[in-house]
């Protein structure tokens, strides 16, 4: 990949990944408010806002992060399976994206309930769930690990990476 294109894809990957992390942080704050607030209108508003925020912010950012990461790794010497930290980031990204896409069903359900419930305390108990807090918390943890790996790039090549390195050096010496 040419340097200019590589920088562009790297910028896109950083923006999407950090944006995703920030969006999950906001989501976690909303989830905590939804779980703890005593104001019925606030609780309903939180669960109503979560679904569009998920579809229009979280899902696009997660897919952009995954796609730009794939392009960045496959288009450079880093490769996708050569370094442990790249491989672990890929796993984190894929798992987080799959869980997010599955969890959008739950958010849709919660939004439906929020739209249909009245403001009584009995109805609110249907909405209050620790599930969004847990999902957002685990998501943040995973994305923080991924961000840390990106910055520190800890050493360590996979067996595949070592084999490829051997092959390349053998070719360059002949």
């Amino acid at each position: 990949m040419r340097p200019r294109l590589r920088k562009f894809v790297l910028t896109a990957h950083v923006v999407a990944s950090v944006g995703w992390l920030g969006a999950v942080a906001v989501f976690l704050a909303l989830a905590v408010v939804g779980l703890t607030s005593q104001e019925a209108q606030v609780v309903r508003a939180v669960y109503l806002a979560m679904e569009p925020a998920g579809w229009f912010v979280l899902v696009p950012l997660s897919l952009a992060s995954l796609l730009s990461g794939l392009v960045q790794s496959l288009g450079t010497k880093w490769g996708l399976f050569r370094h442990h930290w790249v491989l672990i980031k890929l796993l984190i990204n894929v798992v987080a994206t799959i869980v997010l896409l599955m969890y959008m069903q739950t958010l849709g359900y919660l939004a439906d309930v929020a739209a249909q419930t009245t403001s009584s305390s009995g109805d609110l108990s249907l909405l209050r769930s620790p599930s969004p807090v847990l999902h957002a918390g685990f998501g943040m943890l995973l994305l923080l690990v991924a961000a840390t790996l990106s910055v520190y790039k800890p050493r360590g090549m996979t067996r595949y990476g070592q084999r490829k390195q051997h092959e390349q050096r053998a070719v360059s010496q002949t």
Partner: protein
Amino acid sequence: MAHSPPYPDSYRDTGDDREVEPALGSTAGAPRWVKVLGIMALVLVLLVVVLLLTGGGTHGPGRHMSSSDVGGQTPPRA
């Protein structure tokens, strides 16, 4: 240097001088940090499994797939 660095950004990333790969021919297993991360991930997965089991299996999007669930939780309108 006689050969290109194993880490593509080694030339420009002046803030980190540790980016040197194991010597040629090294067949060492996964580094310690990978093992530590793996153990932490395993503990986390076990924790989630325990949570799922103790939660009575009511977790997950599958529980919302039935239309009767939504209908059952919808309060009657006046």
